[in-house]
């Protein structure tokens, strides 16, 4: 909301400059966004009259002028084309400062002295909007009427000094979307009297009638319209508004249209109540009906656009058609024309939520809708319509009809709040005396009532945001001073801050990651179906079926919530690859989202899992490097019992180089080399390794119960064994058999060689182990171990067709 200091001065004396005022108001809650000053930064520019023009002897495009600046004549050389002898112009004298910071100095132009500069509007920081009759690429010609002002400061003569402050108004303070509201804040903030120039607008005694000049008004949908007031002015002369009004409108960013429309805008700025003006003759049957639009109804709004309406939208209609979209914009069909004679002023209050929805649906946000959607005061509506009529009289552009139509089905509620000063002080941690509280509230025009020894506060009509004690506390604090708040520490019951199991595991995982040289990344949780297709998934893959769609995505890259973190990781690896970063090791701890069992359709929340994703490429990276890191993660998380199973059917991964980790049947991690086709889709020209580890599941399966095991007292017995098996036998299978058959005596099993040769034969390999046997309560005997070894070998032969290597 923009407000000029000049206008605000109608409400309060202002004895500080605009920057200081801005700081003070920011600290009382009206945050200043920008301060714009015109005129302030122009120095030593005066009115002058051109007395003589002659050609420059050495330059065709320059002329030498003599300019009368009151007490002297100065010589100025200029290239301007639009000047004539006798023109009155703005003259920047030697030492003048212009708004762009330029300082005017004496100088020579092609050998001729020039002691100043004649200015264009642009050089004075003005625009064609300020002075439409001026040209932009020439000297500003002031006209004869300024001849009396020769030598006077141009800023004073043209009255262009203006300070405009732009405030950020919070949505609870609809009253501050008006100069009156900000003016009140200014007065209280500066501790000045609030002059209240529009005090008596609601006390005007005029006759309430059903019809004025044949016009009637009815509210058909009172749930959306709380009050509808109409007044009429006759014999209107449509024309231009006076300069002072145009200037104030412009300061607030509103263009002047004609005197009647300007009055409605002026009142809106002044009092915060949007108004509308109709030509009475454009209202069919002179019947105004406030109703919901009918499906399929259309209206061409004042901006010339035809808009489709629906049953959720409120309109102002006549007996046949909508003539305005309530609270948003009027219709072309009832616009004020140059020949309009009788004007209907509308001042109404609508349900804010409805106006907001309508304005969104139509993508049409106006000064009116911005105010209405916050919820306006029904009481203020009456003031506004009276003010509009008052302005018509003031400008002498029409006659007042001393009657009013006032449909007021929903009265404004007034709060009554007990002023419990002790409670307020406790809430704020302050010690403000009750008297001071009352004095602040009084300045804010709150009514104070004493009843049965208790003090009650009744907020003024324009402060519907004040509903309870906490609201009073804020008002008191605003003017007692937010800067007077003390700093104390919570003196409450002791609480213990501790990380939970999952948070601790996450911390440990991060430390394992950085120790293995991985860098953490952050990615967006959005993805799209094309991205999932890059993973070569079948259409019936659950990663596609369970994706959750965003109703209003930001763009087509972010249409769904990711069901897998792999695409995000591949994308980042691909970015790094494209930037020629060699050997990249990354990890990400983030979520994936799955619509399991159609929960979304049942309005239930979907599943969210926290996933550790590892992604790496580079010369030193292979499957077993990745496997080692995964094992470290599990070890640090104390997840010791799990199975590793080869995965051949996951389209993301290489069918021969991928593993699932399982507890029971529950897969909690998948890792391996990414499928060459997928890699190609991401434009990476190198092997890429990825692991996906579900941290929620790790947390579930991790067993943190460390217990000391005595260090063995008895010696171990060791045996080496080398067996020949078929190439496709996994060592994991061999190890399981060895463990199973070792009669619980096996302490350690170490693979130390895998060997292939022609001698062994095609598709055969030799696998060699070192086995260490020990039991905790006695020394093992050779024979015992020999028996176990025999059993192991027999079982290996039986199950795997293994042979002892000779």
């Amino acid at each position, binding site marked *: 909301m923009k407000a000029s200091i000049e206008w605000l001065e109608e409400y309060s004396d202002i004895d500080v400059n605009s920057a200081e005022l801005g700081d003070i108001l920011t*600290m*009382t*809650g009206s*945050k200043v966004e920008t301060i714009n000053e015109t005129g302030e930064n122009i120095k030593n520019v005066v009115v002058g009259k051109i007395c003589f023009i002659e050609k420059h002897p050495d330059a065709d495009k320059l002329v030498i002028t003599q300019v009368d600046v009151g007490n002297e004549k100065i010589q100025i050389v200029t290239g301007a084309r639009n000047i004539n002898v006798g023109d009155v112009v703005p003259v920047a004298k030697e030492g003048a400062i212009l708004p762009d910071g330029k300082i005017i100095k004496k100088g020579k132009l092609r050998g001729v002295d020039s002691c100043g500069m004649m200015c264009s509007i642009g050089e004075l920081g003005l625009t064609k909007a300020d002075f439409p009759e001026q040209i932009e690429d020439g000297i500003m010609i002031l006209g004869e009427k300024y001849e009396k002002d020769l030598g006077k400061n141009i800023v004073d003569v043209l009255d262009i000094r203006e300070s405009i402050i732009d405030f950020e108004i*919070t949505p609870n*303070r609809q009253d501050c979307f008006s100069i009156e509201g900000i003016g009140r804040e200014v007065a209280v903030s500066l501790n000045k009297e609030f002059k209240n120039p529009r005090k008596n607008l609601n006390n005007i005694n005029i006759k309430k009638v059903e019809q004025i000049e044949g016009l009637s008004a009815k509210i058909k949908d009172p749930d959306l319209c709380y009050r509808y007031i109409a007044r009429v002015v006759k014999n209107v002369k449509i024309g231009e508004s006076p300069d002072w009004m145009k200037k104030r409108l412009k300061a607030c960013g509103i263009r002047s249209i004609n005197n009647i429309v300007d009055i409605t805008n002026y009142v809106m700025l002044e009092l915060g109540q949007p108004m509308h003006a109709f030509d009475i003759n454009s209202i069919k049957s002179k019947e105004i009906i406030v109703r919901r639009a009918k499906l399929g109804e259309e209206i061409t709004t004042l901006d010339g656009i035809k808009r489709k309406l629906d049953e959720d939208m409120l309109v102002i209609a006549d007996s046949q058609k909508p003539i305005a979209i309530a609270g948003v914009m009027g219709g072309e069909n009832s616009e004020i024309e140059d020949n309009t004679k009788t004007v209907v002023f509308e001042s109404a209050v609508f349900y804010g*939520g409805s106006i907001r*929805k309508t304005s*969104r649906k139509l993508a049409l946000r106006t000064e009116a809708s911005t105010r209405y*959607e*916050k919820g306006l005061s029904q009481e203020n509506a009456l003031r506004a319509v009276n003010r509009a009529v008052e302005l018509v009289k003031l400008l002498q552009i029409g006659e007042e009809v001393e009657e009013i139509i006032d449909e007021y089905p929903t009265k404004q509620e007034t709060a009554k709040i007990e002023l419990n000063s002790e409670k307020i002080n*406790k*809430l704020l*941690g302050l010690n403000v005396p009750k008297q001071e509280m009352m004095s602040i509230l009084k300045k804010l025009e709150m009514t104070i009532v004493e009843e049965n020894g208790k003090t009650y506060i009744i907020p003024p009509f324009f402060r519907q945001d004040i509903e309870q*004690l*906490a609201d009073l506390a*804020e008002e008191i604090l*605003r003017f007692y001073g*937010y*800067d007077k*708040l*003390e*700093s*104390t*520490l*919570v*003196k*409450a*019951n002791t609480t213990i*801050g*501790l*990380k*939970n199991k999952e948070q601790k595991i996450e911390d440990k995982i991060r430390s394992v990651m*950085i*120790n*293995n*040289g991985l*860098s*953490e*990344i952050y990615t*967006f*949780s959005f993805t799209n179906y094309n991205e999932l297709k890059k993973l070569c998934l079948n259409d019936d893959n659950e990663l596609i079926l369970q994706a*959750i769609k*965003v*109703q209003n995505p*930001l763009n087509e890259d*972010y249409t769904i*919530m990711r069901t897998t973190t792999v695409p995000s990781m591949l994308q980042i690896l691909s*970015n*790094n690859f494209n*930037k020629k*970063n060699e050997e*990249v090791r*990354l990890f990400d701890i983030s*979520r994936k*989202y799955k619509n399991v069992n159609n929960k*979304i359709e049942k*309005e239930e*929340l979907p599943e*969210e899992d926290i996933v550790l994703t590892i992604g790496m490429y580079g010369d030193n990276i292979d499957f077993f490097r990745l496997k080692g890191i995964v094992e470290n993660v599990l070890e640090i998380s104390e997840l010791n019992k799990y199975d590793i199973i080869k995965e051949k059917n996951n389209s993301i991964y290489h069918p021969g180089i991928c593993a699932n980790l399982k507890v029971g049947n529950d897969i909690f991690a998948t890792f391996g080399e990414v499928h060459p086709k997928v890699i190609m889709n991401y434009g990476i020209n190198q092997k890429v390794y990825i692991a996906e580890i579900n941290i929620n599941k790790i947390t579930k399966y991790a067993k943190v119960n460390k217990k000391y095991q005595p260090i063995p007292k008895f010696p171990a017995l060791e045996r080496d064994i080398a067996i020949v098996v078929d190439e496709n036998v996994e060592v994991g299978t061999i190890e399981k058999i060895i463990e199973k058959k070792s009669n619980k005596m096996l302490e350690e099993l170490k693979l130390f060689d895998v060997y292939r040769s022609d001698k062994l034969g095609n598709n055969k390999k030799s696998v060699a182990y070192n086995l260490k046997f020990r039991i905790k309560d006695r020394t093992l005997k050779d024979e015992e171990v020999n028996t176990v070894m025999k059993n192991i070998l027999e079982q290996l032969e039986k199950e795997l067709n293994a042979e002892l290597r000779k």
Partner: protein
Amino acid sequence: MKEKILNLKEQAIKEIRQSNSEKDLNDIRVKYLGKKGELTLILKGMGTLLPEERPAVGSLVNEVREKIETELKLKTNDFKEQELQNKLKNENIDITLPSKRTKLGSIHPITQIIEDVKEIFLGMGYEIADGPEIELAKYNFDKLNTPEDHPARDIQDTFYITEDILLRSQTSPIQARVMETKQPPIKIICPGAVYRSDSVDATHSPVFHQVEGLVVDKNISMADLKGTLEMFAKKCLGEKTKIRFRPHHFPFTEPSAEADVSCFVCGGKGCRVCKGEGWIELLGCGMVHPKVLINCGIDPNEYTGFAFGFGVERIAMAKFGIDDLRLLYENDIRFLKQF
């Protein structure tokens, strides 16, 4: 005889001391103490001595033998020491050659800030609470005094999945969930990702991170809020940091405030980071709105509380001097490795 033995001793010692290698020493040992060594021969020839001379000569021979052995040992040690010295001399390395290690990875700046914040608040007895990112509108809005017709619920600002399910636009729904399930005292912080419909640019992102805090108990005051945030600001941004409250409005707090901190780059003098103002807008906060307490089943006549929340990216950017938010999500390894 005695003289001969002593001569032998002198001679042996001389030879030992003049010897040049361990091999020489071995020869000397054989020459004097070996089976056919000179001293051994004397012992063997004891039979020719008078019985009364034998003990004296015997003990002299033993004395000399010990002496020679000691000398031999000393000289051997000398040689060993010398040998070691030579070896050490040859084993000299260039210690500025590169080390053998896996270079450490790095923790993302967003995590670093969140971890700093967690540590500060854990120390003050706060728990860390978590909740779903895909959230019910009920928790994201309704319970937080942001009813259906409130502007903040606008589809332009919030991503919706259905009419009632959305991507949380703040971490506050976690607060509502905690208040609903737990009676005071409540002291929590809620870090996490939040979603708003903003296009990506140097200062905006549709996904960003917040940390919110909530305290509810008897007699919690706005001074407690200021004290807590002051403590936080000092620990997180430096002991000299000052904090300033300005009035503001949020639907879920009353009174509400925006808190600025003195610029931690220039210390308040005014610089590029604080745009010459000396203050940086840090967070929004206030006393929990009584309606929010009621909505979550807490009696506002008995309990009061405060809440605050801030954007992690903003702090990370200011603290690390990162001038474009996009860098945080581009994850170029050359960027990541700097943290």
